[in-house]
C-alpha cells in the first residue's frame, strides 16, 4: 500500500487525474462483476432508444453574459441503465474592451465531450433517473486578445498588446452527477452538475487564455452546470 502511495504521489498531476478516472472505471467494472451494475434480468429490451437534448444554461450564459455555448447531446439508452452520450457544441466569448483593464477577448470554436452515464436509481425503469457519469472533452480554438495601444508607464512609448488567431487546444475530464425527470410523453427535463479537470492544454504564446469553449473559464479545475431539455426518440 505504501509503495502504491509512493508511485501515486510521484506522477504528475494530470496523470494522477487519469489514474483516478481509470480506478473509478475499474471499480465500476468490479462492482458490475459483483452485481451492483449488472444488467437487470427482466423483459425490458437491451436497446431502449435514443434521446436528444439541448442545454439551456449555456444558452442563458450566451444571452446574459459575454461568453457561453450552444450545446446539444445525443444519448443512447441501454436497458435504462447505461447511457453512452456524445455532447457537441459551439462555445463563444466576446468580451469587448473591459471597463477596468481595456482588454478584448474573442473566441468561437466547436467542442465535444464523449462519455457514459449510469442510472444509479434502484428501480432502473422508473420514469425519473439519477445519473453518475464521466466525460472526456476536447476543443481546438483560436483566440484574439488585444488592448488599445497604451503608454509605457516609464518610457511613455505607445505599446501594442495582443495576439491574433492564436491557436490553442485543451483536453479535459468531467465527473457528472445529474437528474432527469419525465414531464410528459417523450419530454424530460434534467440538470447536471460537473466537476471539470484539465488534463492537458496549449494556451499559445501568452501562456494563458480566459474562456475555453466547452470548459468555461480557464483554470486547472472548475465546476459547471447544465439544464437540459430532453426528448426521447
Amino acid at each position, binding site marked *: 500500500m505504501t509503495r502504491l502511495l509512493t508511485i501515486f504521489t510521484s506522477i504528475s498531476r494530470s496523470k494522477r487525474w487519469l489514474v483516478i478516472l481509470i480506478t473509478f472505471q475499474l471499480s465500476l467494472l468490479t462492482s458490475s462483476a459483483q452485481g451492483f451494475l449488472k444488467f437487470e434480468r427482466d423483459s425490458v429490451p437491451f436497446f431502449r432508444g435514443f434521446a436528444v437534448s439541448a442545454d439551456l444554461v449555456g444558452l442563458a450564459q450566451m444571452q446574459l453574459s459575454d461568453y457561453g455555448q450552444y450545446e446539444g447531446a445525443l444519448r443512447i439508452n441501454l436497458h435504462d441503465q447505461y447511457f453512452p452520450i456524445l455532447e457537441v457544441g459551439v462555445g463563444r466569448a466576446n468580451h469587448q474592451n473591459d471597463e*477596468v*483593464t481595456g482588454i478584448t477577448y474573442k473566441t468561437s470554436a466547436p467542442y465535444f465531450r464523449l462519455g457514459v452515464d449510469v442510472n444509479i436509481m434502484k428501480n432502473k425503469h422508473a420514469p425519473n433517473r439519477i445519473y453518475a457519469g464521466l466525460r472526456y472533452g476536447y476543443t481546438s480554438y483560436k483566440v484574439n486578445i488585444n488592448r488599445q495601444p497604451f503608454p*509605457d508607464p*516609464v518610457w*511613455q*512609448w505607445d505599446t501594442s*498588446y495582443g495576439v491574433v488567431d492564436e491557436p490553442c487546444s485543451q483536453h479535459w475530464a468531467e465527473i457528472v452527477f445529474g437528474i432527469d425527470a419525465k414531464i410528459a410523453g417523450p419530454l424530460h427535463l434534467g440538470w447536471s452538475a460537473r466537476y471539470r479537470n484539465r488534463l492537458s492544454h496549449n494556451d499559445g504564446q501568452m*501562456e494563458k487564455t*480566459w474562456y475555453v469553449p466547452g470548459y468555461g473559464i480557464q483554470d486547472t479545475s472548475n465546476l459547471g452546470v447544465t439544464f437540459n431539455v430532453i426528448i426521447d426518440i
Partner: protein
Amino acid sequence: MRRLLLFAFVAFIAACSTIDCPVQNKVAVNYAVKTIVDGVEVKDTLTDTLYVWTTRSDNDDTLIFNRGINISSFSLPVSYTHPEDKLVFCLVDTNKVAAIDTVWLKKEDIPHFESVDCSAHFFHTLTAIRSTHKAIDTIFINNPKVNYDSSLDHIHVHFKK
C-alpha cells in the same frame, strides 16, 4: 424530483464569480551586486550612492532609481516593448565624485495574459547587456527570464573597487 430541479435553478442564479489576478504582478529586472573573492563570485555591498536614469520617448530624463546606498541588490523597471533599454548609472562616492556609465539592455518582449480582469503585462527574455566601464567592472546576464518571480537575480554587476 421537481424540487431538485428548482434547487438547481436557484443554485445557478446564486452562483458567484471571483477575480484571480496574481498579487505579485510587478515585472522588473533584478540586479545583484557581486564581487570576486578567491576566484568565487560572492555578494557585495555598494558603499557608494547609486542613481539610475533613463530617457523617455519625449527625450526628457527620468530618475528610475534614487539614492541606493549600502545595497546588495536593486530592481529596475524594464520597458514594455522597446527592443533595447538605455540606462545611465551614476555612482557617487563619499567624496561626492561621480562616475557615470551607460548600460544597454537588449531583450525580447512577450505579452502576458492572465484574465480579462487582470491588467496587461509583458514578460521578457534578456538577450544581451553591455556597458561603459567608468564604475562598472563587469556586467552580465545571470537569468534571462523576467516575469512575476521577484526572487530571481537576472543580472550580476561588479563595480570597480
